[in-house]
């Protein structure tokens, strides 16, 4: 059953990836006027434009361009950067480390804060804590990430300088320095996501607080804390895994902003730099890369979900 489900899920991402490819392909063709002119600038020679058009394949019919482009992508060829003339795949993979590090620390930090918060709020659900928590999560979702980042830079980088406010140290140069540089950016990314995940966890925990099996557990004479941890929390965890998958989208968007503010040389910063340079092959490559990562992460989460909860497989 699990194998069948896995195969079905794998097949189902094919049309998704196809739509992703069409959208990424169209990015270049949405530009007003000739993309080659845009990249090279107004005063470029016709020969240079013609050469770039040929390099990007812009001189062929649209459908043919798409098929060629798709063929290249399947073989892992995303073209060449117009700015540095390096293969786009190399350019992207050189930047993957910082972004994945930032994602990892942010997710870990989010879960470390969100899970105990949700459990505590459900445990004390009849007190003022619950409405307080709901309001706090709303506020958390309303803070502009980049502004919050500016405030924290002001607070912890300038006023009380305990964190570096710029740059990145690879993990190979020492875990301490790596974590030290990533902590402040991760706190900012986590702040927004904690509200969402803790809220979702609280909601699904509250739903199982009055289920029959919880009543039975209480009737057996189990302590409320045991009931909450063993019966309520473990059941609420399953739907929450899906939400973790969704927050990864938020994090991937957030890293673009945070990497720019903290000058972390990741994929997000590469994207912004490439937009300013009008380096369309790299823009396409980064967008495609992030979308594919996101699709794959969600596929993994779905499979994990099916492994944890057998009912899903029969859907």
């Amino acid at each position: 059953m699990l194998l069948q489900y896995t195969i079905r899920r794998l097949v189902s991402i094919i049309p998704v990836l196809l739509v992703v490819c069409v959208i990424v392909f169209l990015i270049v063709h949405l530009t007003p006027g000739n993309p080659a002119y845009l990249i090279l600038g107004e005063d470029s020679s016709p020969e240079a434009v013609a050469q770039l058009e040929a390099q990007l394949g812009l001189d062929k019919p649209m459908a043919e361009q798409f098929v060629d482009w798709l063929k290249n992508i399947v073989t892992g060829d995303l073209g060449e950067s117009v700015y540095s003339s390096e293969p786009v795949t190399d350019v992207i993979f050189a930047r993957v480390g910082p972004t994945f590090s930032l994602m990892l620390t942010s997710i870990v930090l989010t879960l470390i804060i969100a899970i105990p918060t949700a459990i505590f709020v459900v445990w004390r659900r009849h007190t003022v804590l619950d409405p307080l928590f709901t309001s706090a999560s709303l506020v958390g979702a309303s803070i502009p990430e980049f502004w919050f980042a500016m405030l924290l830079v002001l607070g912890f980088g300038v006023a009380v300088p305990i964190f570096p406010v710029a740059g990145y140290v690879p993990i190979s140069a020492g875990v301490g320095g790596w974590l030290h540089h990533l902590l402040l950016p991760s706190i900012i990314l986590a702040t927004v996501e904690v509200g969402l995940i803790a809220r979702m966890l609280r909601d699904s925990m509250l739903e199982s607080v009055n289920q029959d099996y919880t009543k039975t557990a209480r009737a057996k004479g189990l302590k409320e804390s045991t009931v909450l941890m063993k019966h309520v929390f473990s059941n609420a965890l399953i739907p929450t895994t899906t939400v973790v998958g969704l927050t990864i989208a938020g994090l991937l968007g957030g890293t673009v902003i945070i990497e720019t503010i903290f000058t972390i040389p990741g994929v997000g910063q590469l994207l912004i730099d490439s937009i300013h340079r009008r380096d369309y092959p790299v823009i396409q490559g980064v967008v495609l890369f992030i979308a594919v990562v996101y699709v794959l992460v969600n596929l993994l989460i779905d499979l994990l979900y099916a492994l944890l909860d057998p009912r899903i497989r029969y859907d």
Partner: protein
Amino acid sequence: MLKKKRNLIALGTLLLLTVATLTAFWWLPVSPLEIDSTKRLNGPSAAHWFGTDHFGRDIFGQTVMAARVSLFVGLTVALIATVLGTVTGLIAGFYQKADFVIMRIIDGMLAFPSLLLALALVAALGGSVTNIIIALSFSYWPVMTRIVRSAVLQMKSAQFIEAAKTSGVSDPVILSRYILPNVLSPIIVQGTFIFAKAILAEAALSFLGVGVEPSTPTWGNMLQEAQMYITIAPWFSIFPGIAIMMTVLSLNMLGEGVREAFDPHAKEKIKKKKGLLKTPVSAR
């Protein structure tokens, strides 16, 4: 819904901001565009409540003025995304054949983190208010389609729909008169959240330098300029940010309010909180 204090405060804040920004030219004591080189980066004072920027312009006035673009972008994106999402969602939910095609496209679009999709589109189209609206509407409507579709699917087998079908009511009438009014509450809730998200996204795009033209005062543009002066003029950064947060928070609170007012499930949770259901579970 309006009986709750929280919803009233949220609605009041938004109305006040809208009226303030639309009438700003009449009542602002100092023009927000007036450059005064003798007053560069002055802190908050009686004459300049929020201080002045690097050109000596009044930050309070600019913050009020900038609300125009933010509210306009947010509202327009919310409306476009809602209309597009509702129409496609109704069709996808009602017609099984269309469902397959529409949902594959929607799934593909949802594979992009929305801010990223907007960034990519703005990168291609170029930064301007119109293009930001196009990019953000395109990024947010798939979510609306999904929500409307699942609401329609739940409704579809209801008896009164079946009855309408058998008595020969045409599909467009069933969709607009029978189904739409019944799925309106999730649409309004989601529309409000899109409004809030679009304001945040517009600010983020402008802050990143790929949004609205730098000459137009928007909260994102102000913060981008303020970033350079954050250590010497923190007020320049703080006030526009608070303005964004208050606006977005008001919208999110309104969305929550609508959700609670329409969702019986949420009401039950409130009762529980108030202790009405505190009695031993077995007594229920």
